[in-house]
């Protein structure tokens, strides 16, 4: 009898505990979900032959973390992603397995855009070019970064040529040629983003690219309307609303990041969201 009572009490205690415990785990801070990793050299030594598996598990952790951040953003909950820790985590994954494409792909999808860490990402990607000797995507990312973010068209063309050689695709070859002359940065960014969306498998990453593409499309529409206005009236419009009032724009595109568009002192299209997450640094304009 006593045993039955003890057994019943234990089951009851567990049943009462499990729901709040699961809630606690579900709602633990996002920072805890990413966590901190030891130095890559130490991880490499301790993981031995399981280096590649460890790297893959680290990438999964990064993806879950970033997916949660994006999900919160869609629910209008502002979360400040730990970009520095996130970058260090990705760098550790690259050190453990420099062949893992997921790390380069994620680094390219997030860091140049959201925190303007182009040089750091390029450093990672250069490792990818050295190790993944068959892969056209890593030089493609590098070429894009050099052209779009750093305006270094000569190096961009070199990387695009490498991508073209590795893939045998005309697309990269055309981009390589275009980079020497291209000046319309928004359309260049759109071309890149469309390619990335087409090949994106992970929903969080695809969503991130789609947000960026929609933002750039909106910027491009306003910039084109601004140019029409300037040709027609011989001056710059004071605000995008004026484009609506003069009938140059039928509807004002929305900033998917939640900001409002405006023109800066040089007439460039800007937005109050700066086309980044709340903790990010200034983004692009046209």
């Amino acid at each position, binding site marked *: 009898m006593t045993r039955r009572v003890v057994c019943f009490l234990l089951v009851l205690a567990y049943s009462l505990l499990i729901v709040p415990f699961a809630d606690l785990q579900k709602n633990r801070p996002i920072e805890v979900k990413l966590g901190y990793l030891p130095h890559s*050299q130490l991880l*490499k*030594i*301790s993981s*031995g*032959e*399981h*280096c*590649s*598996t460890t790297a*893959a598990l680290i*990438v*999964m952790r990064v*993806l879950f973390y970033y997916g949660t951040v994006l999900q919160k953003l869609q629910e209008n909950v502002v979360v400040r992603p730990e970009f520095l820790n996130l970058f260090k985590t990705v760098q550790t994954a690259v050190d453990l*397995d420099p*062949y*893992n*494409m*997921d790390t380069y*792909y*994620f680094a390219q999808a997030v860091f140049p855009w959201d925190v303007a860490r182009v040089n750091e990402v390029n450093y990672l990607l250069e490792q990818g070019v050295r190790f*993944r000797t*068959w*892969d056209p*995507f890593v030089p493609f990312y590098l070429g894009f970064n050099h052209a779009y973010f750093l305006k270094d068209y000569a190096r961009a063309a070199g990387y695009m040529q490498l991508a073209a050689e590795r893939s045998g695709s005309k697309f990269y070859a055309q981009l390589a040629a275009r980079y020497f002359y291209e000046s319309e940065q928004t359309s260049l960014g759109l071309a890149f983003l469309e390619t990335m969306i087409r090949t*994106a*498998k*992970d929903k969080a*990453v695809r969503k991130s690219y789609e947000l960026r593409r929609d933002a750039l499309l909106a910027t491009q529409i306003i910039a084109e309307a601004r140019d029409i206005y300037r040709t027609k009236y011989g001056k710059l419009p004071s605000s995008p609303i004026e484009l609506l009032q003069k009938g140059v724009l039928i509807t004002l595109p929305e900033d998917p990041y939640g900001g409002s568009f405006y023109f800066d002192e040089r007439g460039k299209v800007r937005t109050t969201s700066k086309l980044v997450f709340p903790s990010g640094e200034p983004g692009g304009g046209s």
Partner: protein
Amino acid sequence: MLSQLVILVIAHLRGILRDRILYGIFGVAAVMILLIPALSSFSMRQVQELSITLSLSVVSAVMLVVTLLLGASSVWRDIERRYTSSILTLPLERATFLLSKYCSVVIFLVVSAVVLGLSCSVVILLASASYPSDIPINWGNISVALCGATVKYMLLAAFAILLSSLSTSFYLPFFGALSIYFCGSASQEVYEYVSGEFGRGMSPYSVNIVKAAYYLLPNFSAFDFQVQAVYSLPVSFPDLSLTGLYALVYIAILLYLAMLSFERREMP
């Protein structure tokens, strides 16, 4: 002697197959292998590559546990059960008995590698069918990686047998072999680390100790062909032959020492 060895190996293999712990280990391995396609699907750009990575890791982890359990417990358990006392009254050399123990462990490891490898092949095919990779699956390299893992655990089993022949308990062979596994897996990395810039800041005495340990300990990272299998990188066959020869000589030395030790050991 050969017929005695064969009879003993068959008897030991029967004993191994009766071990329920191994069934538990292989049950866990089956669950892990079944989970591989689901886990691989989390990859953004390399589902097939991740499935191969996880498969090889599962095979290696299972073989490590099997090697440690069989290698560390086999001789010790026979002595505890006084099986050795009765069997060694027969006209049988102790060396033959020890060699039969090692051969039975090796045969079981080879069979395990084949079974696990075949199961993983199915899983890899399933995972790669869902999201085909630009890199074709290189079955040759995957076989090389599986062979490398098998040879590595043959070497570790020889260590476990040597420690078993010295020890009167289960703990020294088990934890000793586990320590050797960790040290041998890390030795190449540590050696390269202290040979580089980091080593210049260390005392020459410490660097020499690390280098001596590197040459003495088995270099398990030499048997790791996982990256070549996953990314279909070229494998050098002259290098493979040298690595195989290294393992063979190392195993021969360990078994020789184990036999020497076992022959001098007092049986209860």
